């Protein structure tokens, strides 16, 4: 239905999230850190980015700032999923469409995805 990029350095979490989204019929591309995610997004624009906060090379916050600064990508919806840094994410309401605290319930995440994609 839609192309979603999942950026998380934690392999298991990224894979699990990808599986859940694929079960809902979405196409998912995973990235192990922010910079890889940005490259994937530029190569093929997704409908949504779901990103972790703490990642090597480029954090979720830096990734979101890079996207908002890019004219072509500025309006891309971004969901931040994070344990400890949810608060930092909420301070940057302009960067993130939604912020979910880890551990999150799959239903809450899917609901947020549906709300944003307008399914």
């Amino acid at each position: 239905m839609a192309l979603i990029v999942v950026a998380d350095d934690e392999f298991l979490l990224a894979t699990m999230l990808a599986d859940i989204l694929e079960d809902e019929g979405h196409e998912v591309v995973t990235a192990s850190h922010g910079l890889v995610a940005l490259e994937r997004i530029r190569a093929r624009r997704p409908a949504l980015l779901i990103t972790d906060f703490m990642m090597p090379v480029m954090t979720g916050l830096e990734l979101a700032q890079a996207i908002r600064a890019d004219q072509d990508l500025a309006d891309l919806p971004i969901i931040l999923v994070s344990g400890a840094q949810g608060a930092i994410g909420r301070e940057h309401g302009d960067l993130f469409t939604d912020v979910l605290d880890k551990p999150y319930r799959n239903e809450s995440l899917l609901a947020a995805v549906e709300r944003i994609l307008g399914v």
Partner: protein
Amino acid sequence: MKSFSRIASGIEGLDRILEGGFIRGASYIVQGRPGAGKTILSNQFAFNHAKAGGRVLFVTLLAESHERLFQALSTMDFFDAERLGKDISYVSVFQTLREEGLDAVVKLLRKETKRQEATLLIFDGLLNARDRADTDFDVKTFVAEVQGQAAFVDCTVLFLTSASLEETSPEHTMVDGVIELSDTLAGVRSLRQMQVRKSRGSRALGGLHKFEISNSGLTVYPRIETLYAHLGQQEEVEPTRISCGIGRLDTMMGGGLPRGSITLIAGPSGSGKTTLGLHFLATAENEPALHFGFFETEQRLRLKATSQGIALPPPGDPGFAVLWHPVAENLLDRLAHELLDHVAAHGIKRLFIDGLGGFERAAVHRDHLTEFFATLTAQLRNLGVTTVATWEIRDMVGGDISAPSAHLSALLDNMILLRQFEENHDLQRSLSIQKMRESAFDTHAYRLGFSPSGFMIGERLGHPLEQPSPSESRG
């Protein structure tokens, strides 16, 4: 001699073992089986380091979730979620390793260390890196490269691994230090210990040191033998005498207890050892006094003192304290640290230990008890403390009286023996001095009684001409 710049782990006992902390820019392996305490140690270090103004990069190679780690750590006092993503970052390089190999991990670590301006890099999962390496040469290169680039920016590195690497392993040969954590069974007890297996260019306290894990993280108790090893032989006991609290006994000893000496009161249960100690503590005039015991709470001690007419300083008196450690799972070195710390902090001059058996019970490795007591008594002398300690002789009535142990007796300056015996089907007690170091003393045994005003030393035993004993006078 050049001395190293160090960063403290904030784990006091560990910093003492490492003679000040980890060397700045050096690399270490922390190894131990799962559950040995590597994660707690490294995170405690990380948060303490961040609190002290440092920046930490925590890199994992495991598929385990960071969130689960944070949940586990959230019960720890040192954990501060506010620091996450600010001065402590946790990143996983699992995918990088899987997809691009060790070289890519090295490159990523270099970039991340620089980007985060990290002063401490913790790499969890050296075992996984090892699995990925095709040869020992690859591991060696990996460790060498990571530590080389970290050292270049003055960043200290901790490699965590659950493998028990041998001294000849390539990892060991590369790093500056190796710390091993173990969790073993001693009888029915679980015993956590740490050992510095390697410490390049720097001294470290050798051997196994016990530690505990609680909500405050690791508490490490360096073996006191290693801590105070430099004390060596003490100078002679000072000649000044202080009262033991009982005038007659002072006279028998030739003027009281030599200041700074160690005195043992040996005797069976109920013979009056504790009462004698309470007299000693109650006589402390303007000298901070401490009761360090294993049997009675402060409340019970006070009841006992009151019933014997002994006036202990009132509760809350800054010059008097009771530290009670019920005989349960005590750690020998923890007891010693608590005792010595309290003595040093409060300037204790009169110490009553009731009794040495409590230390013996706490010892897991009894073969080092003699060295332990030697160090403890040497340090107490060094601190100028006059110590009286009890030793329970297990024979209730009569029987052979033996010194606690030949080695232990040699460590003590003075020894007082309390005995119980039956006479005309009545329990009698006696007191005699067995030993006074460098001093003449009254060698006779005296009858011992308890009066409303405490200890009462009665007539001399076995000397019909001077003071006939009741049995003989009846004959």
